[in-house]
Each structure stands twice: as C-alpha cells, then as structure tokens.
C-alpha cells in the first residue's frame, strides 16, 4: 500500500481517529510514515507554541456601539456612479446613438412594418472614442416618441417581478465569494417607441454644426421605425442601503447585476434596411473602420451589435449556456460583464467581480 500523505499524517496529529483502519495498519508497520509523522508533529507543535497567546478580553457592548457610531463608509475605490449627471448626458446620448446606429444596421427587405431586426446572437463592434464623438444624436435625424412609455419599477420579490414582466425570473446558482445574497428586484413591462425620420430637421442640425449631410434616400423622410424593448427583469445583489450616501449621485456599486429582457424588435415602414445602413454609414465622422466593422457582420438582422469602446474595454467571445456570448472586462475584479441571447431573450450578468466569476454565475443561471 502507498505511504500516507502529508495531509493525512497532519490530520492524525489533530485527531487520532482520523486514520481509516487500513491507514492505521499501514502506519503501525511503516517506519517511513512514522518518521515523517514525527517531523510533521514536531513542526505542528512548534508552530502552535509560537502562535499561542493569552486570550483576548473584549467588551462586546462597547465594541458594538463603536461600530454603530462609525461614519458611513465611502464606496470602495471612491467610485461614484455617474447616473443622470447633467454633464454626462451628451456623452451618454452619443453612446446611445452609436448603439442605435449599429443596432439598426440590417440587411434584407424591410417594407411596410416588416420585422427587420430581431437579434438572436451578439457580436462586438469596436468603436473608438473618436467614433463616438463624431456621431451626433439620433434625435437630430427626426423625432422620437414613446407610444408605450417604459415603466420600470422596484418590486419586492422574484414572483412579483415575474408578474410585472411576464418573464421567467432567472435564478442564480452559487454566488462568488463576498457577494451578498440580498437581492433587489426590478421589472419593466414592454415599452414601444416610434422614430420618424425628418429630412428637414436633419439638414438644419447639420447646417448648424457646419456640415453637409448626404441626401436622404427618397422614401426615408417621414418613414417610421418602431422599436419594442422589454419586458425585462433585473436582479441587483448587495445591500444598497448600507453605507448610505449623503448625496444622491453616490451609491454603493452593486456587486452583481443579473438582467433578462425579451430581444428588442425593430420594424420599419418605408425605408429599406439597406438604405438605412448606407445612409447612416455615410454620415460625416463615421470612420471607414467602423463602417467596415458593421458591414462585416454576417447576419445583421439577427445580430445585436455591442459597441465596445476600444480604449476603455476589451471583449472576447465566450460560450454561455451553450450559445455564443460576449464577455467584457477582465479578472482584476474591478468589473466584468457577459451578454448573450438565448430563445429570444437577451441575458446580461455584470458586476465588480472577476470575469471568471461572472461567467460562472452566467452558466449557472436557471
């Protein structure tokens, strides 16, 4: 029989009964194991000796009051959430516009309210900050109005989130170490918006910026794009009330967010998808590189392009729940995310943990 492992011998030092009957027989007949045990026991005794200290005496009541009186802690790394800070709105608008532009790039025929965009998979599109800055807001090309306003709401339970959204609320498996099991649920019913192209408005906005726009294809002026988003559910892990912030823009960053939403659907009246792609990609400031990246997407009508600012983030293709997904971030624990589409639902998991942990959570969603 093989000699006893170091771990087994060490365990024997703490617990005489730790050995199995056959281990005990081997040990009593094996001079080698006995000699190793003697050395292991000597180390263990010596270390226990040097780490021995008198017991610490504590006053729990006074310690608790001390902890209670501690000032609310600042978020780690001093990160502030830039939520709805007026200064960040233009930048957010540009990002949103870029996302919509790449998302609207589609092939195929699109006449009379034909569904021409319903993504089934995700694909990264590298954009530079310069690309983002060169794109003006989509609002300059027409008008946008909600016909069914988004109504996100915080709900008290997974069941209520399911009722509000009509979706199955994903259940997480094991959580990464240190992630709170306190969950805040939010849910949103379906929302619908209509964008109407307006050639005069686009030309006026361009003229104001000193640029000339390419001519809008005939039929595009006045044509409508109907965008349906949601329903959606979001689960936020972490005690959001702890360390309450004094000013409203400063919150604890959630440790983990899990979201699920029906794939967005875009329908069109009038404009064809090819016209739209050509028109948008011919706008001043869209770099040839970005245009090429968008045109290279093989099946744009079923692909949700995710704009990745190349200076700020990295992405890689991964397998999640048996389908292609896109992972962002890295293993530093500062932040990572993964997004994938399965059975008509877009899923996302993001958090201030390692990418490997995010993928683990994603793969264990059920």
């Amino acid at each position: 029989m093989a000699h006893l492992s170091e771990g087994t011998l060490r365990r024997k030092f703490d617990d005489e009964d730790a050995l199995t009957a056959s281990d005990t027989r081997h040990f009593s007949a094996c001079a080698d194991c006995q000699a190793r045990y003697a050395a292991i026991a000597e180390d263990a005794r010596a270390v226990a000796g040097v780490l021995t200290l008198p017991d610490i005496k504590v006053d729990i009541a006074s310690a608790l009051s001390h902890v209670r009186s501690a000032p609310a802690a600042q978020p780690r790394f001093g990160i502030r959430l830039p939520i709805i800070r007026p200064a960040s709105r233009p930048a957010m608008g540009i990002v949103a516009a870029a996302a919509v532009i790449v998302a609207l790039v589609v092939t195929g025929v699109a006449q009379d309210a034909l569904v021409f965009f319903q993504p089934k998979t995700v694909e990264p599109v590298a954009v530079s900050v310069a690309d983002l800055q060169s794109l003006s807001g989509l609002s300059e090309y027409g008008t946008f109005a909600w016909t069914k306003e988004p109504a996100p709401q915080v709900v008290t339970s997974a069941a209520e989130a399911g009722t509000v959204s009509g979706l199955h609320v994903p259940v997480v498996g094991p959580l990464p170490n240190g992630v709170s099991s306190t969950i805040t649920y939010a849910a949103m019913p379906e929302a619908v918006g209509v964008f109407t192209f307006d050639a005069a408005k686009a030309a006026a906005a361009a003229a104001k910026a000193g640029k000339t726009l390419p001519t809008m294809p005939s039929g595009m002026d006045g044509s409508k794009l109907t965008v349906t988003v949601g329903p959606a559910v979001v689960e936020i892990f972490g005690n959001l009330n702890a360390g309450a912030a004094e000013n409203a823009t400063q919150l604890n960053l959630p440790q983990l967010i899990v979201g699920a939403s029906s794939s967005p659907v875009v329908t069109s009246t009038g404009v064809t998808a090819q016209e739209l792609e050509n028109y948008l990609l011919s706008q001043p400031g869209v770099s040839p590189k970005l245009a090429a990246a968008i045109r290279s997407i093989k099946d744009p009508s079923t692909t949700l392009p995710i704009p990745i600012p190349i200076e700020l983030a990295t992405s890689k293709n991964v397998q999640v729940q048996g389908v292609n997904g896109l992972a962002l971030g890295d293993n530093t624990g500062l932040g990572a995310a993964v997004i994938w589409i399965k059975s008509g639902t877009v899923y996302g998991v993001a958090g201030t943990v390692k990418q490997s942990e995010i993928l683990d959570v994603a793969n264990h969603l059920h």
Partner: protein
Amino acid sequence: MGVNLEAGRRHGAVKSNEDSFETLFAAEYARVAGIANRVLADPHEAEDVAQEVFIDFNRLHSAAAPYAAAWLYRAAAHKALNRVRGRRRRERRELSQAADEGGRAMDPQHVFETSEDRRMVRQALARLAPKPATVLVLRASGLSYAEVAQALGVGIGQIGTLLRRAEAALRKEVTRGTSL
C-alpha cells in the same frame, strides 16, 4: 394606505436586518478579534481590525447570509496580516519601549526575548503567501477543519495538506532569524 404598508414593511426589514447584525456581532466579535490578535499580538489593534471588518461586512452583506462567519474570519486574518506588513517601523519602536518598561519589572533579557520572538513570528507569518498564513492563523484561533475550509473556500480534505505545508513554511521563515 398602500404607502404606509410599504413603509412599515421596509421599516420592519431594516429592523430585522439590524437585529440580525447585532446577533451576528454578539456571536462572532470575540472570535474575530481573537483571529486578528493571533496575527497582531496586540489586543487594541486587534479590536480595531475586528471592528473594521464588521463595518465592511455590514456595508455590503446581509447579516443573515449563510457565509457571514466564514467571511468575517477570513477578512480578519487578511486585514491583520496586511497591518503587520505595513507596521514594521512602528513595531521596532514598541519593541524598544517594551524592553525599557520590562527592565523595571522583571528580567529585561527575558522580556526582550519574548517580545522579539513575537515580532519575528508575526513578521514571518506576514511573509508567507496569504493562504498558508490564513490557514495557520485560523487553525491556531481554534477553528475546526470544516470552519477553516469554509473560510478559505476550499474542500475540507485539503486542510491537512495546507496546514502541513504552512507549518513547514513558517518554521523555515522563522528559523532564518531565530531558534524556533
């Protein structure tokens, strides 16, 4: 009415959160402080560390979380080890003070040796990789194999091996400077 109900429910949730934090604190504070003291050999500083650990925990986690105790133990060991790494200079000052004070009360040579040995051991501990150092500290603080395994997020079957290697490593580190 709906609003009142909602506010009441939220208030109830906050209250029960606070209650469970107090229960957790009462159950684990002494042990968490003990773990920090095992590393620092300084009860005052150990209590500082223990309180910081609870403040950190309370900021991000629910006291009812099943991993609460394991989280606290590991955080106490890590935070205390980090302090040792950062306090070398201060330790030297305290050491010479201890030797001066001891001179008035008892054999100065003995006090110096005890204090110096402790310092060497703590420094050696802090030079180990975090995992072996934490295994030693948690086990020496009276945690069972199962508790140590949970705090480290490893299988219980690995604890014997981890302990053995950590003990050999610590002895080696310490014997570089003293006679352990």
